[in-house]
């Protein structure tokens, strides 16, 4: 990218040194090096996973297991653990675990990082790698009776499948009977107004208390990874990111893909386009946070009239601006590799006027939200000190975004791993220390203010941008074929947190593996942690405060 590091050579040397230091830490287990574009990669034996990850976490401060990617090669399976540090996300490493074709077993990372639990279940479900010592290895996205692993090489898509519709048994019933306790089993969802989509919570209650909640996902598993693997880099993939986090957060998601492929294929982005991207992305963030706040209030008050409508009103304004910019209300498809698809709409003054208008009214509406929501005693009673998520727990589940920042984890990729135009602008990362539902709400409301600041600065810049320097897209070849076996994992700060993409090229114009690291997937994992032992209304509030979107959880 055009705006990066002043002294690339010095940086590269420092990175290489750090990589060697890390290798020295776990040297005894390292079979070879398999460096990715973003980070050094260490190939380790399948039975040393826990040792290696544990050492790296303790000694090298790699305390964030961002993602687990599994894939099948002609001659082996491979699981990749993408590690980062919460203090400095540019400090990265990948742990690559190859397993043989006929016996794809490796040690589970779940005892070291709790987030690995779901990530490995997904790897097992879609690719077919088995993890030993995993607490509960079963399918997660596909129905339990599915036959075959759809992202493995020999999967037959034509094969008929049978999906049962059963009542779900109470998982705790047997133990409870012994001490004469009474529990009730409650299915929340997959069709339920409080689950924000098609999420299914298998909940076991004792009276009003939640004993156990087990999120059952996969009701919107739309095979996004497979479809991206069957599409070309240049044009066909870009429309899909809009549909991951579809709460108007499209541009933020598009940026995740744009960033990954631009770094992989070494594409420059003109500065002018970066400013437009930054502005559009922050508009999307406002729209997304507005809906999060509106539906959260809806969950807590059960009130479909006031606050929800206020939020939708403000979203409509943002959507109008975005529609002027991109041509669509929701599925923008506006980014292109190396820039954006078209310039700002004419007449430019009018467009800037409409944004300024919106920004002028924003403080007033935020005031209204604070009056109606955050200053409201009922809401405070419901949300303060409920759904508590301590920072250490949040980190071990790989939580990011407002969920992490609401627990005081100061982690924002826009600042810590800068891309676009963010590091040229003046804004702050919002954190709250309350660790509860209320803090997460406040973080979102305050982030809207910060986004407004960013947009304002972008508008100022764009207004004065010299007319002869408005390149919206750099020269990009018609077909893109990154070198064979290039691997990259890149993330951006989307509305819900760290949205990462892992890609491996095989020399063709389609990716050989396309893996999406969804922030909601990791964030949702914290729900049992926040809700077990609490009352059921608090469970609903916690779920609302996580602000998940099922399109992104299930992909």
């Amino acid at each position, binding site marked *: 990218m055009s705006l990066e590091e002043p002294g690339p050579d010095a940086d590269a040397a420092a990175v290489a040194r750090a990589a060697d230091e890390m290798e020295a830490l776990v040297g005894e287990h390292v079979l070879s090096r398999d460096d990715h574009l973003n980070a050094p990669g260490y190939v380790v034996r399948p039975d040393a996973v826990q040792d290696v990850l544990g050492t790296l976490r303790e000694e090298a401060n790699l305390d964030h297991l961002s993602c687990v990617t599994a894939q099948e090669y002609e001659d082996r399976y491979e699981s990749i653990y993408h590690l980062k540090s919460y203090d400095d996300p540019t400090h990265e490493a990948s742990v690559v675990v190859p397993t043989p074709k006929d016996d794809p077993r490796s040690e589970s990372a779940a005892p070291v990082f709790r987030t690995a639990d779901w990530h490995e279940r997904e790897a097992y479900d879609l690719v077919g790698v088995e993890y030993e010592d995993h607490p509960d290895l079963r399918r997660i996205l596909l129905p339990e009776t599915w036959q075959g692993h759809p992202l493995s090489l020999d999967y037959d898509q034509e094969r008929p499948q*049978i999906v049962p519709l059963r009542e779900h048994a109470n998982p705790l019933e047997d133990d409870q009977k012994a001490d004469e306790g009474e529990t009730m089993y409650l299915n929340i969802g997959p069709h339920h107004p409080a689950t924000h989509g098609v999420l299914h919570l298998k909940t076991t209650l004792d009276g009003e208390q939640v004993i156990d909640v087990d999120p059952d996902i996969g009701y919107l598993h739309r095979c996004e990874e497979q479809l991206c693997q069957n599409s070309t880099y240049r044009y066909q993939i870009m429309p899909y990111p809009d549909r991951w986090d579809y709460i108007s957060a499209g541009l933020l998601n598009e940026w995740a893909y744009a960033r990954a492929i631009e770094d992989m294929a070494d594409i420059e982005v003109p500065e002018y386009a970066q400013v437009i991207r930054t502005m559009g992305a922050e508009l999307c963030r406002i729209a997304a946070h507005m809906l999060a706040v509106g539906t959260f209030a809806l969950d807590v008050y059960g009130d479909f009239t006031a606050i929800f409508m206020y939020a939708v009103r403000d979203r409509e304004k943002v959507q109008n601006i975005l529609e002027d910019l991109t041509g669509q209300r929701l599925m923008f498809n506006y980014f292109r590799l190396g820039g954006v698809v078209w310039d700002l709409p004419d007449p430019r003054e009018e467009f800037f006027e409409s944004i300024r208008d919106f920004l002028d009214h924003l403080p007033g509406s935020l005031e209204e939200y604070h009056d109606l929501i955050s200053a409201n005693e009922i809401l405070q009673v419901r949300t303060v000190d409920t759904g508590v998520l301590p920072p250490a727990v949040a980190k071990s589940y790989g939580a990011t975004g407002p969920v992490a920042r609401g627990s005081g984890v100061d982690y924002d990729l826009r600042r810590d791993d800068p891309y676009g135009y963010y590091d040229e602008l003046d804004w702050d990362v919002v954190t709250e220390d309350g660790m509860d539902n209320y803090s997460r709400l406040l973080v979102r409301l305050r982030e809207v203010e910060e986004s407004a600041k960013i947009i304002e600065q972008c508008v100022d810049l764009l207004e004065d941008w010299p007319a002869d320097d408005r390149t919206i897209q750099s020269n990009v070849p018609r077909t893109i074929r990154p070198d064979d076996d290039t691997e990259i994992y890149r993330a951006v700060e989307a509305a819900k947190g760290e949205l990462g993409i892992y890609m491996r090229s095989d020399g063709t114009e389609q990716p050989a593996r396309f893996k999406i690291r969804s922030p909601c997937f990791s964030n949702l994992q914290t729900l049992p942690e926040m809700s077990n032992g609490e009352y059921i209304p608090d469970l609903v509030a916690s779920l609302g405060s996580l602000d998940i979107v099922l399109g992104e959880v299930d992909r």
Partner: protein
Amino acid sequence: MSDSAPDRFRSDPTQVETDTRDARISGTDDRFNSKLRQAFGASPFILTKFDQFMNWVRGSSMFMLQFGIACCSIEMMHTYAVKHDLDRFGAGVPRASPRQADVIIVPGTIVSKFAPRMKRVYDQMPEPKFVVGMGSCTISGGPFQEGYNVVKGAEEVIPVDIHVPGCPPRPEALIYGVAKLQERIATGESSPVVVKPYDLEEFGDLDRDEVVDQLAEQIDEDDLVMRYNWADSP
């Protein structure tokens, strides 16, 4: 009884008719010129078949099921909310329970795990019920048609009355679709009921083949299942 009693209880029928008619025509008493009256003509009675009347009522007051699946449901929410306000057309009361709803808008991609649940929700709605398919996903699977897990359109599972194309359709398009549905209901049209390719059946009733045999250990004979024959999908 007041003194004017003889006046009020006139027994001459021609006089009564004349007075009433004069009152109506001159406009001194517009009790008879109600809105309905203006709509239906001079006769003080509405002659209609009961079912036509019911159709008109049904179309004018529709209870929607609150049912969100995917991206399209965001635009559906916007259709219900301020600015677009579907309620203006007598169709804006989302009900949380299928048992109280008579229209289901299917807003999104249907995947294998969800289709049996959606069928169950549809079955729980009381007759007569109507379906609006929102978005390309409910027509054909949309952008996800080639996915291994995606049902190629809502019509594989439940009958659909109105398809609203788009990805996502704009709120205006959804309103147009709903208005069209109201028109159809008011004129008594409904979609032909055909057997859907994917239905819920008991596992024991499936034809035995290799796929069924493999799953025989995991699924009970009387469990409800949905069988997807992907090779036959459009």
